[in-house]
């Protein structure tokens, strides 16, 4: 439960004092988990797609096995 005054909160019965204090405690956990799953799945979709595009672009250029050596920087 949300806390609005710590003195009032600590004056509550012991079992309430030691409960959850995050915003939306007791009512928002399900929604938060659904959001987390959506973000988690979305992340896989987006990064998977981005990686495929990058790899396709690289493959199309048909570089040789030693071509990367000319790209080593020496800042």
């Amino acid at each position, binding site marked *: 439960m949300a806390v*609005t005054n710590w003195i009032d909160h*600590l004056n509550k019965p012991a079992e309430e004092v030691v409960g959850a204090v*995050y915003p*939306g405690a007791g009512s928002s956990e399900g929604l938060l988990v659904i959001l987390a799953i959506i973000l988690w799945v979305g*992340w896989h979709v987006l*990064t998977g797609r*981005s990686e495929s595009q990058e790899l396709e672009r690289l493959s199309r250029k048909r570089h040789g096995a030693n071509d990367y050596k000319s790209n080593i*920087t020496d*800042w």
Partner: protein
Amino acid sequence: MTDQLAALTTIFTEFYYWVTVVLMFLIHVGFCMYEVGASRYKHHQHTLMKNTMLIPLVTVTWFLFGWWIYWAFPTGPGLAPSIMNESTALITDDSAFSATWYTATSELMAINLGDHISGVFWAAFLLFSWTAASIVSGAIIERITTFAFGILAIAIGSVFWVIDAAWGWHFDGWMLKLLGYHDAYASGVIHAIAGGFALGVLMVLGPRIGKFSSSGEPRNIGPRNPWLVTIGLFLIYTGFWGFYAACNIPIFDLGPEYGMEGISYWTATNIYVTPTTLSGITFNFLMSLSGGLLAGYWIAKGDPFWTYSSGLAGIICASAGNDLYHPIQAMIIGMIGVVISYKLHYWVERKFKIDDAVGAVAVHGYAGFIGLVICGFVLNGYPSSGYSVGAMWDGTTYATINPLGQFLGALIMFVVLGLIPGYIIAKVLNGMGKLRIPREAEIAGLDYEIMETAKDDEKAVASATR
């Protein structure tokens, strides 16, 4: 100490802070490695020395006056009365926690058998000071003089960040009372101010030679050594555990502290002496780190440099409210902070030709600012303190956490105590001709003579027969 339980609590608390200092040392090791990894070969040794020498410069000034500022300035002065002495003046009288306890001549600033806390608490805050200065250090590599950086490091490390800590972190701070400011793990108190200060310096210092083309297009000057950057950032993550722990009081009885007769409630608290748990902040630390890494990997298309930095930015963005957030809230807030900070970094670079070599303004400044603002919405209505609850602008009570107060707090951190002082001090140093290294030295490399001497030595040793 004659009572065994009191002795145990005291010695535990003393040891707890001592361990946080050891852990936080890794932040500085990490920053040194990270900066050297990001700098080019010809600047390595000067880059390392610049960041290393802030240790003694900030430590000595922190002993002489930095710690005193923290205890003297919670009232502004003149903005809200102290709950210790009901005065709005600097707290330098005989009241409890007065700054007079922490002048350089005080007996508490030494080995004192009656005080087990001052030294370790002083050191924990000192390590925060190093971090603030080190954040600035990374942004300005390869073209600032060590002299100028020393002045800037003292300014941010022993003056400006500690003023904001007195205002927005101290249990008696005026920002808690007037604004309802809440920043449990320093989104603003360390990160937004240091990022803003770095931006102010960068505006005067200018970019590295070659950073922008003649048409103004930014060029990427990538890290010389990605492995040093990797280890450096992992060490910063590791040290951050100590940072979080140091922002807490490990064991405290809040009943008597809040004046509640007959109530005893032992708990860990945050810096504001309101309850939290180490267990809870462990959830939030790791989930905000994960949110930052996920968002950074996506937005930067797998670029390691930005992905690692984004992990840090995720934690920094969620830090303001990580004493109270749900872990998934912390993760989402970390993600939001990273995406906005990343976009802002490149927009500012392109638009204003700001060359922030390690993205410090974004990772610390923008992420910290955004984290403070989000905290105002998510924790809207929570008390900013346990001592009392009142309305905004009242000053004699503590306002509750709210969006406007957090936004104003973010502006105070980033702009008022960060960007403006950084800009002014850099301007003065520039006017004295002390800010930037000569163009020729920058092109040759700060380490040119060291490397030339080493080469001569190498030749001499190689040709020696005895």
